[in-house]
């Protein structure tokens, strides 16, 4: 441990010491070099993280031949919208997109309502059995999703909702993490307002609906973002709950494109155009709510 440096270090160390004032010129040059280096590193990493997406957009406007010969350039040799024309006019892509929108809207709306309802009950209603319900939720969060593929198929099949919107949507409404977020939120706001409402004779649901819920807007937005992203990007659940082309969602459809089930040759512009298009909605939500996303994730996982 270096808590007690020798006097030698104190004199010659490049670290700021109490004598900051006198050493300023020398230190500021070192500082400048350090800062430039920092920005250089950051810029390189940013290129690595963002570059692939730029390449994919650029490639989606290239011709097949151009994409193969020049995979790196960000400007197509000849601009071609063939990939997009084919996707929209000559493929099931519009159906996939519509299905994704339908599922995402219902799942998100459902989760917002059910999560806040359950979260409120767990945070505020002191009911018999609350601890058991809470322990159950924690246990549920521990079950890895992939393990549930076969089990979920069995039940969906048994219930007769295989290959229906119901089978696609209802199982996705389950969201223990969302209940947690809402519960944490409700615990963080003062209960005096609602107590007043209850004393005034408002029923529990009425109190919840017209007094508590409007106050919970920030947390609700968090749930909307998480549900939107989760259901839009979901793949495995749709693999096991549907088979008909009419009910194919974007993730499943684009995955089938990728494995070449519909196309001859590589057709990278087509695949990358599809991938780029399916990224747009999450990207839009991401940029709209950037601040909130960046800050909410630390609340999602509490230590």
């Amino acid at each position, binding site marked *: 441990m*270096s808590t007690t440096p020798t006097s030698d270090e104190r004199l010659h160390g490049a670290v700021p010491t109490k004598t900051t004032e006198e050493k300023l010129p020398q230190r500021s040059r070192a500082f400048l070099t350090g800062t430039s280096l920092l920005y250089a590193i950051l810029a390189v990493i940013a290129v690595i993280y963002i570059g692939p997406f730029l390449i994919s957009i650029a490639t989606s406007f290239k011709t097949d031949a151009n994409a193969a010969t020049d995979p790196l350039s960000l400007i197509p040799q000849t601009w071609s919208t063939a990939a997009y024309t084919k996707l929209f006019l000559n493929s099931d892509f519009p159906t996939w997109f519509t299905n994704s929108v339908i599922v995402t809207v219902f799942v998100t709306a459902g989760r917002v309502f059910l999560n806040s309802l359950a979260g409120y009950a767990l945070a505020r209603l002191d009911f018999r059995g609350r601890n058991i319900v809470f322990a159950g939720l924690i246990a549920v969060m521990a079950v890895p999703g992939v393990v*549930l593929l076969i089990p979920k198929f069995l039940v969906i099949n048994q219930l007769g909702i295989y290959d229906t919107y119901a089978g696609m949507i209802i199982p996705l409404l389950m969201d223990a993490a969302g209940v947690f977020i809402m519960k944490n939120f409700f615990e*963080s706001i003062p209960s005096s307002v609602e107590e007043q409402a209850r004393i005034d004779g408002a029923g529990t649901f009425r109190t919840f609906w017209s007094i508590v819920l409007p106050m919970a807007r920030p947390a609700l937005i968090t749930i909307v973002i998480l549900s939107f992203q989760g259901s839009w990007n979901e793949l495995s659940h749709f693999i096991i709950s549907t088979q008909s082309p009419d009910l194919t969602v974007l993730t499943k459809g684009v995955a089938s494109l990728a494995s070449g089930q519909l196309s001859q040759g590589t057709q990278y512009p087509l695949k990358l155009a599809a991938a780029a298009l399916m990224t747009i909605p999450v990207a839009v939500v991401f940029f709209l709510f950037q601040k909130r996303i960046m800050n909410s994730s630390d609340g999602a996982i509490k230590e």
Partner: protein
Amino acid sequence: MTAVTTMPPTPAPAAKKKHRPRDTIAGWLFTAPMLVILGLFLVVPVGMALWVSFSDWTGRGSPFSSNVAFVGMNNYKDLVAGGGLAERDFGTSLRNNAWYVVLVVPIQTIVAIFLAVLVNRKVLKGRGFFRTAFYFPSVTSSVAITVLWLFLFGATGAVNKVLGFLGIHGPNWFQDPSGVVHNILGAFGITQGPTFLTDTNMLGLPLWDWLAGPSVAMSAFIIMAIFTTSGTFMLLFIAALQNLSGEVQEAAVIDGANGWQSFWYVTLPQLRPTVFTVVTLGVIGTWQVFDQIYTGTQGGPGKTTLTPAYLSYTSAFQSQEWGRGAAIAFVLFAIIVFFTLLQRLVLRERPLSRRHRRIYGGPAKGAGK
């Protein structure tokens, strides 16, 4: 904004011991929808699958009909001691995924800490931009990223082009089944393992093959996993860094610690709880590789990207070996639980670090922005 979710919970109305009957009814009514869905699509299914894993159901009709027989532990035995293809495939999938976990978890944790420390400086222009850039891959779907990866890591793709500038002849990533460790050993002229490694089998696979390392194809997926998840975990580390008290850091600097020392001896020990969270989430996530394999390679080349999750899916849905598929899922579940508990033992908070925290003070007020 963080106030929303990180504020300490107000003490629950624990004072009154008696439950109000009105609250009991409302409480159960409010939680009922969630409980019904959880029961119907989680508890019941797990029970059904458990039965299927002990049966010879072939996917036709109901698994509870009278012509489905109870076969005891047979499905599990086939996997761990069957001596056939089922055992070898299962062994191969475990090998592939184990290498994936071993490489992805530490690297993504280190990268996440590195990124968080870089962008957490108080005087940094474009802090928001860099955070956004690093986090963006995390919000996109695994399908879209896999499609992108297939293109970037193609034989004549962008990655090989860049490697070409550096004078390196890149491999044909997703077509290359050779193990990375074997390739490195091969570079030193070792192409054949010692007989005790080649002749000893574990789960139908010679030990020498267990040590092959991830295949080149799997390595591309490993890079992808680091690319897509490091941003998420970076956010967790940023949140943790912002909760550290600056005074300790200052004290260390005043005492003469250089940047590296103050990070290693002062910052990192305080990040221990977050490291624990990130490693736990990492292990849980990396044992469930499915989307990428389904979209990209379907287990190939040479079964080197086969994972237990994907094998479970294909066994059931494609080969109609439902019992085996369910058995694989439960073994995978056991593996994940085992590693989570193991980690809890190894990485759990020691009294020492709790003392550290007490000395170094609690979360700084208002640091969370």
